[in-house]
């Protein structure tokens, strides 16, 4: 177990270093922030002073090493725009994005699992066909369009739910969360639905495929031959088996949900990391962009690790192999 974990950890560190280089060079290549940040009226001396203050006069590799050595001390640079540490800027907005992504994931499981289960058990019923047709829509409709429609219907026409912002928040673990207040929860609902649409479809399809496959297995017939109730057969014998692929995929998807929340956050003016990065790209706020990308990379790596561990809890076969090495 420990050797396995150590190997995974070393791999993760190597990936972080490689990504830091790629991200830094990539971002350096996309434009010159000086043009945007410094007033066109500034004279040559003022320009040079500003460039030196931002560290932009050094050669690229030196900038990278400055960035790296500071990064190792937890300093990912200061935002050109806000004149605040980039890391703090992003971390401030992280709870908003996290609660949005988790809300969407929970919604995907709560809605997707029962629908997928039903569609798998009664594949030929009209209800199942409707569910499956709906899941195709969920896959193919563009997120921003659905977001606008949700605002049109539920915020503008019906006036049931707010369409922008997080609403009131409450502090928990030193961070501000919307889902802890009733009004915040109402603000969260529409964006979370918007973000979860694709994932609901994904969970429905995974669950249905898993059920179709599993109910044909001998062990399900044997469970029935033991005289177990249909509920026990479905919710213990079948369900526990399909949970493995569903949890794996949904867990791995969490990273991309966080990354793709950019669209939803823009549509609903949700003040999360996604909205911050869009604004930062517009003004080429390089340290924020680099810090954001590094945090996303870290997040993917951590999620992969956590999914692996969860997987081994759910699947006894993996657990033992891991112990063996």
């Amino acid at each position, binding site marked *: 177990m420990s050797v396995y974990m150590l190997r995974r950890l070393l791999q993760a560190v190597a990936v972080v270093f490689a990504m830091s280089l790629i991200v830094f060079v990539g971002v350096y290549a996309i434009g010159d922030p000086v043009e945007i940040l410094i007033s066109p009226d500034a004279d040559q001396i003022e320009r040079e002073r500003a460039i030196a203050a931002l560290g932009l006069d050094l050669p690229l590799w030196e900038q990278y090493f400055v960035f790296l050595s500071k990064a190792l001390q937890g300093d990912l640079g200061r935002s050109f725009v806000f004149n605040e540490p980039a890391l703090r800027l992003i971390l401030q907005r992280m709870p908003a994005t996290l609660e949005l992504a988790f809300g969407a994931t929970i919604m995907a499981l709560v809605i997707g699992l029962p629908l997928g289960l039903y569609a798998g058990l009664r594949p030929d019923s009209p209800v199942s066909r409707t569910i499956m047709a709906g899941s195709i829509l969920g896959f193919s409709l563009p997120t921003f369009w659905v977001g606008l429609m949700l605002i049109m219907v539920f915020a503008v026409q019906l006036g049931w739910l707010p369409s922008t912002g997080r609403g009131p928040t409450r502090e928990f673990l030193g961070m501000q969360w919307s889902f802890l207040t009733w009004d915040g929860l109402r603000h969260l609902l529409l964006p979370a639905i918007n973000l979860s649409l694709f994932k609901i479809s994904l969970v429905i399809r995974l669950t249905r495929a898993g059920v179709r496959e599993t109910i044909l*297995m*001998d*062990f399900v*017939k*044997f*469970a*029935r*031959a*033991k*005289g*177990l*109730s249909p509920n*026990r057969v479905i919710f*213990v*014998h079948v369900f*526990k*088996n399909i949970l*493995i692929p569903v949890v794996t995929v949904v867990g791995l998807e969490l990273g991309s949900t966080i990354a793709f929340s950019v669209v939803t956050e823009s549509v609903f003016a949700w003040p999360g990391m996604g909205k911050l990065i869009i604004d930062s790209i517009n003004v080429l706020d390089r340290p924020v962009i680099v810090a954001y990308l590094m945090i996303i990379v870290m997040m993917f790596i951590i999620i992969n690790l956590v999914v692996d561990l969860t997987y081994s809890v*759910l*699947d*006894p*076969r993996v657990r*033992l192999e891991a112990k063996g090495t």
Partner: protein
Amino acid sequence: MNGTAPPTLEVRNLRTHFFTRAGVVKAVDDVSFSVPRGKVLGLVGESGSGKSVTGFSVMGLVDPPGRVVSGEILFQGRDLTKLSEEEMRDLRGNRIAMIFQDPMMTLNPVLRIDTQMIETVLAHARVSREEARQRARDALGMVGIPSPEERLQSYPHQFSGGMRQRVAIAIALLHRPELIIADEPTTALDVTIQGQILAEVQKLSATTGTALIWITHDLSVVAGLADEIAVMYAGRIVEHGTVAEVLDRPLHPYTVGLIGSVPSRNRRGEPLRQIPGMTPSLLNLPPGCPFRARCPRAAEDCREEPPMREVVPGRDVRCFRPHLEAAEEATA
């Protein structure tokens, strides 16, 4: 068998058909047999002859598009085809148990052995979890699994194939069923373990009075185990008799072919004969004797379907031209 008590299981004119898109598959077509208390019936036939479907019909586990179309399945005199799903569930795993062919597939890979055993106990008995666990442990011990207490905590993949089949047998024995249907339970195992399991099952059924249907495609397996043999071909029973009768004096050309394909002590050194040809598809089977295309004795009248008839006293065979001369030679 004495005439008063009904046999544990009596199947009469059972037909189980699958209504597929391509047509009707008559997997079991007019099958009758009975198994008395404490006796072993060997149900023998090539793969695809309808043996498993016969077993699942008795269990009430035939899934759509298949269903039992007609016939009676009398378990201790009660017709199972008339029971509700709840009534069947009370019998399954309790009074009638089944063991499957592939031990690698019959246990749920993500549930511990104790979970899979205790749930079976609790499905049919009102006992505490502790009591259920105790029964599970005893059942594992009974089928020869060492240190059952520890093994209860294991997952299926921690067992060998032979051990998994023992666990499956232990599960089948939990409620001391009156009838066990064993569907090729040793086919996937190697010969030594096969022998051990055969011996143990035989001992168990003799001591507990359990009736046993032992399904196999291998005549040599039932030779030492069964009391009676029913030979199945294309969804029908073509020959039926005691082990001695069927093995020493096979009457149906198909049985003769099957015995010819088994290496036996009389025939050692001779090349193994195969029955030429293939099992016919049961989908839209043409009328007439289904063995016709492969039968060395086939003639014009075999275009008709041969009925099951008593050709020699006490011997039922479904053939117009049984091997009577062999029987005469042997008795002469």
